[in-house]
Each structure stands twice: as C-alpha cells, then as structure tokens.
C-alpha cells in the first residue's frame, strides 16, 4: 500500500488514518483568512488501481506506453498508444505552474506562468479558473494564458481582479488546455500536483479585504415589448430596466421562443449609456420561421462585477407574458433541413502533403443551403479534420457562369503532426438559412458510408498498438 500523506493546514485537522483513534487537538491559533481549510490527500487512490487515465500528463513515458488523451477513457489493456500511431498525439502537459502575484488588491491584475511539455506546435490559449475559497463559483477570476513569443514551452497568464471581487483566498480550479489537434485536457489540484503551491495547497492568490465587494446579481425592474404586433420582417423592439446594488448593470440578453417552442431567437440588449440600467433590443424573426405569439423564454442580466441573474419564464411569473405577435407567410415557413444528393472524393489515395478536393451537391426546399461540413476521422480516431465547403464560382469570365448555389467545394489537407493513413468520412453536416440542420453519420446513414481518402504513410500501417 502506498503511503498516504496529508498536508495539515487547518488547525485541528488530523491525518485521516489517525482520525479514528484519537480526538483532534484543540486549536492553538485562529485560522488566517488565507489558510486552506481542507486536508490535501496526496494520493486519492489510497493504493488502489488508479483511473484508466494517467492524470499527470505522462511525462517521460515512452511512446510504447503513452496513451493519448483521446483513448484514456478505455479500460487498460485496450488503449491505443502513441508508439503505434503516425503523427504526434502527446497532450501538452503542465510541468510547472506558478502564481506570480500572490497578494493583490481589488482592481489589480494577477499573473501566473506555466511551463508545458512538449512545446506547442501552434500556440493555443488556455484558461484557469480561480475560485473564491469562500464563495466558490460566485466569485471567479479567469486567468487566460498566452504563449511566450519565442519560448514555446512558456505561457504567461493574466487575470483581472474586479474592483468588486470579494477579498480572501482564490484557489485554482478547473484548468483546461486545448492542443493543436483540438484535444482537451483538464487539470485539477487533487489529481495533478503541479497545480499546487509549494506548501501543498492549491495554487492560489489572496485578494485584500474589499469593502466594495459585490456578489449580488442585478435584478430585473421591468421588461416590455414596445412593438406587440409586427408584420413579416418588421423589427421588434424591447426595452428592459435592471437595477443593481453596487457595481451597476452592464449587460442584458434575452431569448424569445416561437409558439411551438421549436424555434428561439437570441437578442442582445444594448445598454443605454445615458440612462444606466436601461437596455434596448431590436430584432426580427427570420422570414422562414413560424408566425404567431413569440414569448420571452429568458432574460440574462450582468453587472460590472460579472454577477449574473438568469431569469427563466418557466420559473419567473409574468415573464412568459412578454411577447410579440408576429405575422408570417405560412408559404415561406421552412422546417426541413437540406438534403445531400452527392458527395464527391475524386482522389482516394494521396501523398501526405497533398490537397484533396471535396465536393458536395446539396439542395434545400425553401431558404437555401447555408453551410456544408465534411468531417474526416483518422485511422485510430485520434484526429479529426472538419472541412467547410463553400459555394463559389471559379474565376472564369463566361456568360454561362451563373451561380450554382447547390454545389459546394472544399479541400482536405493534413497538417504535419497528424496521423497518416485512411481518413474516412465520419460526418456530414448541412444547414440551411432557416437554421435547419442535418447530421449524417456513416453508422446510420448509407449515403456517407464507406468514403475515405488514403494518405501516404510515413510510419506503421497499423492504426495503433494496444497495451
């Protein structure tokens, strides 16, 4: 059994193993507001088999044993390893994290620096949330990291402590990194020791006491549709008034829902600087949507302290009555998604650095095709490339060249770090201008099944060895 160690910070807390045998000692000093009041368990597995993932980032693990993040959900023994894959699929692992500004005042910037291994090929930002020890996610400081200009292993993070953030300790919480493949990795203090301060507690900073602290969300004083009846395509105007105790209301958003509740329209309400607390919205219901009474589904308010009030009509009496009657032409109503008539992959084999043309023929009954995406999944599933196809005419000056709104073209390319081998079509996604979506998947839909491009391999023919 592995040794279980505890960092004792809260006065009177005792090692777990000893808790059953002896009463806790009495406090000898009052707890400081910066103390971390919980025990840190160095190893929550307590000697049992860890989760199927290696949560430390698997630094130093050879390719033959390294399991990329995308395969870590599988049980041990069936996980694909890096050594059997083409391309590079090591997650970028945090190896060091240090908060540079340990004590800050409200309104200050807090900085942190991290080291990652391996360096990113293409820098992607990542974010760490620091949660108030006392108020949890009601008071969060987001620290956004950006890559160093030349030292690609280093990232500098900056976060703003609002003038209204409460004082006290802020501990690092959810930290999410996305790499160049689009893979995600989350870090947390219990499973990733790199997230801890030198004293073993979660990495943190302390905000000085703040008499101006504001954790109270704004309240809605009123909301009204100023144009209760509109014709097709006419603008609907909304006016809302919000109140706030300290920081002052800054933003408002609303969602209106169609009579059948199958459609929603988001409305950004813009603050009227001349009249603090007043928000105005102006929007139209798309001509392809149903007519009738469109009702307020929710209104969302923020204050300058980033406190949020979420007010849903379902639980807030009266809100649902805020509505507009919209006239619409039933003949224009479009509830059907586009249809895929053909998908063309003229080249089934290609060199690794070759660009592969992809074409699709898509039709729509009323509003017209808007977006076409074709996704390709790599042999092991470690990579996915989503190609957006566009409807454009080639640059030829001919009288016969009229627009072809049903022909969509794009190009599939592999970046150097991606796996080689057979990329199969894993998804085709279509939308029209009425926001009707069709999602085709080869597991269910025959028309996109069995389509692939074979890219020249540079390594193994195998899609992946298992361990």
């Amino acid at each position: 059994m592995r040794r279980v160690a505890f960092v004792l910070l809260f006065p009177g807390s005792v090692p777990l193993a000893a808790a059953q045998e002896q009463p806790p000692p009495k406090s000898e000093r009052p707890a400081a507001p910066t103390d971390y009041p919980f025990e840190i368990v160095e190893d929550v597995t307590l000697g049992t088999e860890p989760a199927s993932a290696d949560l430390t980032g698997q630094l130093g693990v050879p390719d033959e044993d390294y399991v990329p993040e995308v395969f870590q959900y599988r049980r041990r023994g069936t996980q694909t390893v890096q050594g059997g894959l083409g391309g590079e699929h090591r997650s970028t692992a945090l190896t060091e994290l240090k908060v540079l500004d340990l004590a800050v005042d409200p309104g200050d910037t807090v900085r942190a620096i991290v080291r990652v291994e391996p360096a990113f090929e293409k820098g992607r930002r990542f974010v760490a949330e620091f949660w108030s020890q006392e108020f949890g996610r009601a008071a969060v400081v987001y620290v956004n990291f950006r890559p160093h200009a030349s030292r690609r292993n280093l990232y500098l993070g900056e976060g703003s402590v609002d003038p209204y953030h409460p004082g006290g300790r802020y501990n690092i919480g959810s930290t999410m990194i996305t790499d160049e493949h689009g893979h995600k990795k989350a870090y947390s203090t219990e499973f990733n020791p790199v997230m801890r301060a030198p004293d073993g507690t979660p990495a943190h900073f302390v905000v000085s006491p703040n008499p101006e602290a504001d954790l109270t969300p704004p309240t809605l004083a009123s909301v009204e549709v100023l144009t209760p009846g509109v014709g097709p395509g006419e603008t609907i105007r909304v006016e809302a008034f919000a109140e706030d105790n300290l920081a002052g209301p800054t933003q408002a958003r609303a969602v209106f829902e169609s009579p059948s509740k199958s459609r929603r329209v988001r409305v950004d309400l813009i603050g009227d600087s001349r009249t603090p607390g007043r928000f105005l919205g102006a929007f139209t219901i798309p001509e392809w949507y149903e007519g009738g009474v469109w009702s307020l589904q929710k209104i969302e308010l923020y204050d300058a302290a980033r406190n949020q009030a979420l007010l849903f009509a379902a639980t807030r009496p009266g809100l649902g009555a805020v509505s507009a009657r919209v006239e619409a032409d039933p003949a224009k109503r479009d509830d059907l998604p586009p249809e895929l008539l053909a998908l063309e992959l003229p080249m089934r084999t290609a060199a690794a650095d070759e660009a592969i043309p992809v074409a699709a023929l898509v039709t729509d009954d009323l509003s017209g095709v808007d977006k076409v995406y074709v996704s390709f999944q790599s042999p092991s599933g470690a990579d996915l490339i989503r190609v957006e196809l566009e409807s454009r005419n080639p640059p030829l000056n001919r009288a016969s060249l009229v627009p072809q709104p049903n022909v969509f073209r794009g190009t599939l390319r592999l970046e150097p770090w991606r796996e080689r081998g057979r990329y199969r079509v894993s998804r085709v996604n279509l939308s029209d201008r009425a926001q009707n979506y069709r999602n085709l998947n080869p597991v269910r839909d025959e028309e996109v099944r069995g389509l692939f491009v074979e890219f020249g391999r540079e390594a193994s023919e195998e899609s992946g060895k298992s361990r």
Partner: protein
Amino acid sequence: MNDDGRKSGRGLPGRREFLGATGAAALGAMARGALAAPVQREELVPDRSLKTKHLIVILYGNGCRKKDTVEDPAHTPHMARMMAEGSVFTEDFGETANLHGYMYTEMITGRETVSEHPLYPTWTEMARRELGGSPNDYWMLQGVSYYRSWVYDRKHWSAHPEGGLQFGANSLTMNKLFHQDETRSPAELVRANIEPGLGHTQKTRSELEEWIADIRSRHLHLPASTRTSLVEREVPVGDGQCFEIAKHLLSEFRPRLITIQMLALDDAHADAGFWDYDTDYEQYRRHIAATDELVGNLWDHIRSDPTLASSTSILLRPECGRDDEVNVYGQLHHSQGNYYAHNVWTLGVGPDFRSGAVFPELVMRRDLCPTVVYLLTGRDTARHATGSIRTQMFREEYRLPPYVRRDRFGNPISI
C-alpha cells in the same frame, strides 16, 4: 472555544475566523442576506421514522434534458410510469451547467465546492456515519473511471473531519471489474479496487469477493437486452452494467444505499475534442431510450420482491441538463445560460413519497444531498449542505414543514 463561543478544532472555521476581522467587516458592508448565512445549517426538519431502508440514487448521466425524458413520455415510457407512482420536480435548478467534476461533487455534498474530489462529507459518508453498518451496505457504481477529462471513481469519500474513508462506500467501476479479459482473482480485484480503510472485516471482504466471483462466473454483469439496444461502446455498456449490478447488490446484500452515476449521456457531444468517441445527439437519445428501460427494470425488480417493495426508494436526477438546441455539428452541449441546461427534473419513487405528485416550483440541485440523508436516516443532519430537504415530496401524513429554498450560500429565499 473561540470568542464567539463556538468550538474550534475539528469543524470548519466559522465565518468570522475564516475571514478575519477585516474581512468580516467588509462583508458587513455588503447587501444583507446575500452572505449572512451560517456555514452550518440549523436543523429544520424534525426527526421521523421513515419506511425507506434501501435507497438507490441515480445520477442520471453527464447531462440530460427533461425535454428528452419526462417531457417526452413516448421516448421514456418507464420513467413516465414511475412518475405516475412517485413525485416529480420539473424545475430543478443548478447554477453551474458546464463542469462535470464540479457538478457531481456539488450534488453529492450539497454545497458549492472548489474541488473535484469532495471536500465536504458526501451523502454516503453522512448516512453511514449516522446509520453505521459495513462497507457492504454502501455502494457507488460507475461504468468507467475516467471520461472526457474527469475522474469518476473517487467521489465516495472526503477528507473532511466529519466524514472520511471510514464512512465511504465500495466504489465499483464496471470496466475495471467486469469484462471478459479480466484474469485476476476476485481477491486481487478487491485489493486493486477497494480502498483500505473502508472498514471491511475479513468476513465482509470475503462476502464481497465471493459475490464478485459469482457475478463473473454467471456473467450476471451483462446488461439485459432492451428494445432499444445500448450503443456498443465502453461507456454506455458500463452504464447498462451498473443497473444490472444494482439488482444483484439489492438481492445479495440488501444495502442501505447504492449510488449509480451514469456517464454516457455525454455522448450527445462526446466527439467535441475526443474524436475517437464519435457520437452525437442521436446516440444520446438512443442511450436515453435504452437506459429508461433499464431504470424501469430496476424498479420492477424492487417491486417484485415483497421486502424491497415496501422499503426501497429510487431518487433520480441528472447532474445538469443540456442546451436548448442541437448545434450544426450534431452536438448537444451543456452550456451556461441555456434553460434546459440549468433546469432539470428529479424523480422520486418509494414508500415515503407522494404518489403522482408533480411539483413545478423552483428547487435547487444542492437539495438532493440533504434529501438523500433525511430519507435514509430520518434526520436532518446534512448540516454542511446549503440546500434543503424537499419536504413537499414526502407523504402528506408526515406533516413535514414547508420546503425552504436557499441560495448558493445557504440563505433562505422567500418563495
């Protein structure tokens, strides 16, 4: 004792200690009510003897909409018939809708957290501390140990002084214990999966090993076939196994508490950043249909046993819901601000609940923990929770006091 007369030492620091004098003064300047709640809730609901002796809590997945379940009875006919027999809350709110590791911890501890691993006692710890019993009376089941960046098999205990591993559960992970390639002996599996310090005796450990051997030898971990089949992937199959295992645990151990955490409902957007797991909204809907039948099977199993029928309850609630809309890529995320992501349902069936009752009033995710503890112990002892016991769902003749809705800091909100 401290100067305010409270005992310091084992418990968490009081508000004044925690903030220091300056901090407390600063709080005094804030709007009254927002932050004035005590850290530890006073007892509110009187003790009473309840009929529930066995409880199954189903954390219904990594996000599921009521729109795809209780608002769509044709898609979930088993849940629909259970609703008719039990109590349902239709506006069950959670402030956070986007972080699984945060949300499940909030659910099982009944309060906000700053950590994935519980910092406050879980419902398992509170119940076991109150009721006693062996580890074989308390179970936590999940299909896999790690999925989409979150760890799921380490949540049954905290290091809190009022909890601890000695009040934890046997945490069983399906793909670590029950699969055809597993060659280790039951004793080795127990050693690899069950934490030392849970309080097993030689006898209870032997019983556990014998049970695992029996399950494996008779392949009892295989999910029952359903009209809509489970998707043949590790995570959904693991969910299905949990329901099967729960039936056998009930029959064999008559445990006090089984917590099942479903995970595969996150298949609604499982391909987002995890390309190997290429699933979508339609597979999520399929998993709902398949597991609805498994939930129904479990309820039927309970009702077919005369002893269990009169003494067993089920509570079911998702961690969060999912977005109002499927996106253009066929994914259904769970994002802050979406009505269906924040507002879900809770279903309760069993001998202590009202029958055919629907409660449309707003209730909170943090309520589930004190409700679980009360249902099992008959005492309002989840003092760390900032939620309240959902008294309205209990039988009328119990004459429990009205439900008290609380904000995230535990302050009562006038309804």
